[in-house]
């Protein structure tokens, strides 16, 4: 398990020393290792359930405690898949001639390490550190474009991320002051009554994380950053990075929300999510630039995630489970679909040499492959069967109906329709026939294959949702025999 953190860190340092091309070869090797390790972890969890593990034998609070369960291992696998795809794509996509591109690989690996740290972290402070690692790496990646606009977006991103982190840290401080521990599990045990200070702490943490997740109306930083970054970077950011802070928020809520939260809080977070769905989709529909469309679509899709809060608050256990499964599927399918979409959008932009949507006219004639990937990913975003997005939406629908919160049904359905509106806008633009001349640049096939694979995964997720969810629900059992888990 430690390998999951150390491999990326080691490769980050290694690739720091190399230029882009060598870094690429080294990193590909690292990806293979990382994927294998992730699979091994999955195998271990499947064999004997989840477990805790103290890094280097140092126990918390001073050591770094790790904890793996079905959910964590699902996200580890997801990260491996998406990051590998983005890494492969970036290897072909990025322009090796520009000197600063060599920093891509270290940043990429730091990001990966941070992500795994979040999935596996067991105490609040380590989560903070991992979050910061992710943020800094992500900001670096955004700034990799080198232009003023990219720097501007990166700075805005950085400020937002830092503010969010500090708000979170302040919450952590308050919790530590009250309980004297950083372990979520221990806090959960000690927490008996609802104190105002604790509520403030929870609110602070949630607000900080919401800022980092770009929940409406704190989403202002996301579209510029995701829109301007290079496509593989955007894919990473949209697919994985925002999910990390959400993951923490969700874990906080699921552990503490039932005692510290209130219906009012849950509903207003849900309402913000709903507003994000509607507003994000609407803005996505209005954007003139292709990648901005996809970026605003992220804002909308992230909105869905926050429906977790109302749908798990004060409802029956099975309903809560439905909602959790739904949200998890949404995270996974959005990660896959959005990564596919960004990569495909990158290919399209390469081909048409313009970022504008209306420059797509005629593309469907000559570049159906990338367009097809884009469309398949769109299917998942729209929540149409058999995609993972549909499976998620279905579960959320069931949860809303079963919990009697029927108003979310409207949000879910409306969101699908709006998603269809912006996805089909792209399609419409590309189907326009303008003459027979093929003056498009045709990217190499490997570039086209990667988004296609991701999109197919997102699409097929719905068909295999049951096995995926069964990984998710693997039981957690604390095993003393930690040495065996050293992977």
């Amino acid at each position, binding site marked *: 398990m430690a390998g999951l953190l150390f491999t990326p860190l080691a490769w980050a340092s290694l690739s720091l020393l190399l230029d882009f091309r060598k870094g690429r070869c080294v990193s590909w090797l690292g990806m293979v290792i990382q994927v294998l390790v992730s699979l091994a972890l999955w195998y271990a969890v499947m064999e004997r359930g989840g477990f805790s593990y103290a890094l280097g034998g140092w126990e918390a609070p001073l050591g770094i405690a790790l904890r793996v369960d079905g959910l964590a291992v699902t996200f580890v696998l997801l990260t491996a898949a998406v990051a590998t795809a983005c890494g492969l794509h970036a290897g072909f996509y990025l322009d090796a001639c520009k000197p600063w591109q060599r920093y891509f690989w270290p940043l990429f690996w730091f990001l990966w390490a941070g992500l795994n740290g979040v999935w596996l972290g067991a105490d609040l*402070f380590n989560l*903070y550190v991992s979050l910061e690692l992710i943020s800094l790496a992500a900001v*670096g990646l955004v*700034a990799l474009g080198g232009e003023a606009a990219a720097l501007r*977006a990166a*700075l805005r991103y950085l*400020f937002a991320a830092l503010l969010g982190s*500090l708000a979170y840290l*302040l919450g952590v401080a308050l919790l530590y002051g009250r309980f004297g521990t950083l372990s979520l599990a221990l806090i959960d045990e000690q927490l008996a009554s609802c104190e105002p200070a604790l509520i403030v702490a929870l609110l602070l943490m949630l607000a900080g994380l919401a800022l980092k997740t770009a929940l409406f109306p704190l989403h202002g930083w996301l579209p510029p950053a995701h829109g301007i970054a290079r496509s593989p970077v955007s894919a990473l950011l949209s697919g994985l990075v925002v999910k990390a802070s959400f993951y923490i928020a969700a874990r906080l809520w699921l552990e503490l929300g039932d005692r510290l939260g209130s219906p009012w809080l849950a509903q207003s977070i849900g309402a913000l999510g709903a507003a994000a769905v509607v507003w994000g989709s609407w803005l996505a529909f209005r954007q003139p630039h292709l990648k901005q469309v996809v970026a605003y679509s992220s804002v909308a899709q992230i909105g869905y995630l926050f429906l977790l809060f109302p749908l798990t608050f004060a409802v029956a256990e099975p309903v809560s489970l439905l909602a959790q499964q739904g949200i998890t599927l949404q995270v996974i399918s959005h990660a896959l679909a959005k990564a596919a979409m960004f990569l495909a959008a990158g290919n399209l932009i390469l081909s048409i040499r313009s970022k504008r949507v209306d420059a797509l006219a005629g593309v469907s004639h000559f570049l159906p492959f990338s367009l097809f990937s884009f469309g398949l990913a769109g299917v998942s975003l729209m929540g149409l069967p058999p995609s993972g997005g549909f499976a998620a939406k279905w579960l959320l629908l069931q949860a809303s109906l079963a919990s009697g919160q029927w108003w979310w049904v409207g949000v879910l359905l409306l969101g699908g329709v709006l998603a269809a509106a912006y996805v089909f806008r792209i399609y419409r633009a590309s189907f326009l026939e303008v003459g027979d001349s093929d003056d498009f640049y045709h990217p190499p096939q490997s570039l086209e294959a990667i988004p296609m694979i991701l999109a197919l995964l997102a699409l097929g997720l719905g068909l295999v949702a049951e096995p995926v969810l069964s990984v998710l629900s693997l039981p957690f059992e604390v095993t003393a025999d930690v040495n065996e888990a050293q992977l």
Partner: protein
Amino acid sequence: MSSALLYALAGVALCGIGLAGFLLLNHLLRRLLAFNLIGSGVFLVLVGLAQHRGGPDPVPQALVLTGIVVAIAATALAVVLIRRYFHLTGRTSFKAESEGDGGGAGS
């Protein structure tokens, strides 16, 4: 009022000042400084509140140390970015440009 609480309140006050600066100031460097101010406030709260077992608690000290390292890294990154930004555009704030056309020159 115990000293611990005093620390904590001071920390909160620092946070407030920093936050106000962060939101109100336009100059990028000043915002960065405001951020550092918030950071200090948070660390103060962390150290201050965790005194309840009588003596100083080693854990928050360690945490704050880590936090400071992270903050330094972030500040350094921000400074680099701001500097580069200034070189490229000659600006020291976001305001001068119209908001929302971040779609600029990516891909």
